[in-house]
């Protein structure tokens, strides 16, 4: 039997606010018979809404966790033997009209089947000052860091919302459990098992929902950074002898250094203001000139979002919080020191009509 081309697999847990619009955004791209939803023990109307649009809904009760739920769905729907490619998609993410038509040829052109997966770009929606920061962060990290990681062969994470995998990958390995970031865990496993190349292809992109409040932003980065350190421990980074180890070591060490620097800065701030204000001006001037302004220009040129310039003061606050959170996550996971931080899931928002991305060009 000839395999169908691509299955989209959406894991969902209490996603009633967004699941409908996400399925709606997929309508012009592929038949909904190729869209699969696994409802992982939702207490809301997620399953009911999904069933109105696709018959392929697997409801699990009680909640088993995202990774296990996805593994169960892949097995239950027999996706690896029925499809050539599988794309996991977060319930809050919309793929753009040409995403599939730009990404699938990369895999199809790989006749030797050396590519395990192709990773697209993630773009945030503008919904306030926190999301403005995320737009900038995504642009810098993907245009520069991820592009370079692709060249090095050391992509850190295949986002669970912007990656198309060869289905054979899921025959060889399961999505791992035991960390808060199963997509990063899975990416590290791909590297460790040497299952193939990970190609970054930024021409295809998805639009995702980011936290809108400071509290939700903190919850999200706590989860991501804790997941990062869990993956570092689980996969024995930096002792694996791969480029991945060099890349992670570089980012982790500099991230920790910056976290310490921030705390040092806060402690010294009152003394510096009182006795030597110029001590503060020099690093601030350096940062603005060589880091913030160039990366801001990059973002506003590529994303065409001039409004980002109004949020520069907020960016310093969020950068400070991110650095400290990275350090605290290290203390919690690696050193076992928990400063009683609350860990939780960021809030989801219903997609308004203006925000709803409904592609118009069919690409299948």
């Amino acid at each position, binding site marked *: 039997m000839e395999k169908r081309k691509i299955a989209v697999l959406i894991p969902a847990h209490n996603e009633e606010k967004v699941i409908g619009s996400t399925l709606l955004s997929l309508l012009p791209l592929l038949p909904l018979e190729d869209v699969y939803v696994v409802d992982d023990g939702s207490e809301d109307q997620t399953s009911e809404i999904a069933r109105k649009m696709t018959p392929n809904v697997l409801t699990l009760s009680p909640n088993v966790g995202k990774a296990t739920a996805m593994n169960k769905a892949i097995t239950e729907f027999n996706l690896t033997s029925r499809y050539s490619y599988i794309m996991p998609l977060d319930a809050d993410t919309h793929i753009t009209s040409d995403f599939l038509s730009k990404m699938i040829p990369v895999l199809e052109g790989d006749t030797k089947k050396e590519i395990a997966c192709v990773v697209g770009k993630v773009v945030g929606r503008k919904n306030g000052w926190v999301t403005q920061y995320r737009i900038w962060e*995504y642009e810098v990290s993907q*245009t520069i*860091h991820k592009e370079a990681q692709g060249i090095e062969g050391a992509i850190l994470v295949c986002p669970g919302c912007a990656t198309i995998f060869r289905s054979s990958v899921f025959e060889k390995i399961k999505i791992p459990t035991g960390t808060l970031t199963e997509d990063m865990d899975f990416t590290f496993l791909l590297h460790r098992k040497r299952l193939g190349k990970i190609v970054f292809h930024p021409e295809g992109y998805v639009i995702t929902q980011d936290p809108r409040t400071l509290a939700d932003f903190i919850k999200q*980065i706590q989860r991501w950074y804790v997941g*990062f350190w869990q993956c570092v421990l689980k996969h024995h980074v930096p002792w694996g002898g791969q480029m991945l180890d060099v890349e992670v070591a570089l*980012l982790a060490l500099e*991230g920790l250094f910056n976290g310490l620097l921030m705390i040092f800065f806060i402690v010294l701030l009152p003394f510096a203001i009182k006795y030597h204000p110029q001590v503060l001006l020099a690093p601030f001037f350096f940062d603005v000139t060589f880091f913030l302004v160039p990366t801001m220009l990059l973002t506003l040129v590529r994303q065409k979002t001039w409004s980002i310039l109004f949020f520069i003061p907020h960016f310093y606050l969020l950068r400070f919080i991110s650095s400290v959170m990275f350090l605290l996550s290290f203390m919690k996971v690696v050193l076992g020191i928990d400063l009683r931080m609350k860990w939780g899931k960021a809030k989801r928002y219903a997609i308004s009509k203006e925000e709803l991305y409904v592609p118009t060009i069919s690409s299948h």
Partner: protein
Amino acid sequence: MSQPFPVINSFSLLFHGIIVFIAFLIRIPVRIVRKMRRR
């Protein structure tokens, strides 16, 4: 998960920026050769 580390790291930004820039420079002659072949 899309952003596993804080984008504040100036050294790694420079390091990765250099890699991307070198790759860009290498691609220029490759593109020129491809264009010439097409002609």
